[in-house]
């Protein structure tokens, strides 16, 4: 791809998906802003479509909320860990500038967004065939469970593929598999730590049948993801 391709050239997405590490390394080296704008647009479009498809099961309003919130999870997580990840990379053996480490992480998140966005027509079709929401009906809870499982499955699938591509890119940039493995695992831990909490704060995405449709839950900023997991495990062990 030549450097005079437009900012929103879709072939950039294909390059990311194929994992053409040499071309991607050139983008990082050139430091142009058009890849940054492309990634932002792809995240909004792909993750937005996916979030909207998830919320559509509950109601069109939940779809609108999901379309706004899902890209925010990705972008807020990226923004929140940029400083930390930018510092860790040179400490662990890869001398990237902050802008370059931001781009590398954003590329992997863009891959996730493109994959989940590409699956959103299928997700919407499955949701269209699921039992509709009727308050307090067992069929509604079954449908809710199915949508949650599909959501987790798709995100896990996209996440694994994106991390495979990230590892390949880091291998190319560092030339040392041990360095790239350390950096990838460290970045992953930081992103998962913050990403889980941001997802918790911005819930709901699917929308529970027994609760009203809301942009954020009333108790969004009371408690955190890890506390909730801890209490759930405690209750499970004591039941």
């Amino acid at each position, binding site marked *: 791809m030549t450097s005079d391709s437009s900012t929103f050239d*879709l*072939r950039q*997405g*294909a390059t990311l*998906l*194929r*994992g*053409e*590490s*040499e071309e991607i*390394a050139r983008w*990082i*080296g050139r430091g142009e802003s058009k890849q940054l704008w492309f990634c932002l647009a792809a995240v909004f479009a792909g993750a937005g479509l996916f979030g909207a498809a998830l919320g559509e099961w509950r109601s069109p309003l939940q779809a609108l909320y999901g379309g706004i919130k899902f890209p925010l999870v990705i972008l807020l997580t990226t923004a929140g860990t940029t400083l930390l990840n930018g510092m860790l990379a040179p400490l662990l*053996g*890869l*001398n*990237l500038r902050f802008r*370059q480490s931001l781009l590398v992480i954003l590329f992997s998140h863009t891959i996730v967004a*493109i*994959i989940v*966005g*590409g*699956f*959103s*027509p*299928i997700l919407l*079709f*499955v949701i*269209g*065939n*699921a*039992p*509709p929401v009727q308050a307090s009906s067992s069929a509604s809870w079954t449908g809710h469970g199915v949508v949650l499982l599909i959501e987790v499955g798709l995100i896990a699938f996209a996440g694994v*593929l994106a991390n*495979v591509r990230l590892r*390949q890119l880091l*291998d*190319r*940039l*560092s*030339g*040392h598999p041990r*360095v790239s493995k350390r950096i990838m695992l460290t970045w992953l831990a930081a992103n998962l730590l913050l990403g889980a909490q941001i997802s918790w704060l911005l819930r709901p995405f699917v929308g529970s049948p027994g609760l009203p449709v809301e942009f954020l839950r009333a108790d969004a900023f009371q408690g955190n993801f890890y506390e909730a997991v801890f209490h759930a495990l405690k209750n499970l062990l004591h039941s």
Partner: protein
Amino acid sequence: MNESSSIPPLTNPTIPGISRETHQPDPPLGGLESDRQPIASLITAIEAALREPRRLLFQLTQPNQGRLACNLLFVSLLSAFIYGLVAGTFSGGGQLLAAPVKIAGGLLLTAVICLPSLYIFTCLSGSRARLGEVCGLLAAFLALMTILLIGFAPVAWVFSQSTGSVAAMGGLHLIFWFVATGFGLRLLERGLHHHGAQGGMMRIWTILFLLVALQMTTALRPLVGTAPTLLPVTKEFFLAHWMESFQ
């Protein structure tokens, strides 16, 4: 960035953990004289899909591939409509129109739903096919699948006239469709292989396509048999619907 004297040579990396398929050596597309003969008409396109897949796949990479892709899509919709007509003869009446429209429309809708994920999976598998070329390959897949269904149509018609069991007829149509889809997928896979696709990523897309198509048959029911309404009023997953039908 680090300087390294041992940076590995550039290849499009495959997703690890998935075994590479082995293929018989195949000259590159366009390498044979027959590949380069243009496909000008619908009949030639049908012949090429059945007898000269290399020619079809090569012509889908040429500058005027859009017209060929449209012809293939038209062939697939027409063939699906004709097969739907045969399926509709089981019940007769309104099904003679409803079944062909639903089968052709459902096929088109399934293809549209699965196209974005097809393009993503082709990229993930290392293929350099452009979106337009992927659309052409999808059209070729649908065309071959539905052309083969036309081949099954006389058999389906005979059974339609000689059995009254909706479940049996539905099962038979599914078997014919699975066989036809298998051949179509083989053509698609071959086309993507020539564009550089490697590994087993396309198998995942195949499973998705089959699931969406099977669910579409339930979403648009009845295709075989009759019902008070043109489209179903209750939503059901296809496995639940099959279990009900076989009881």
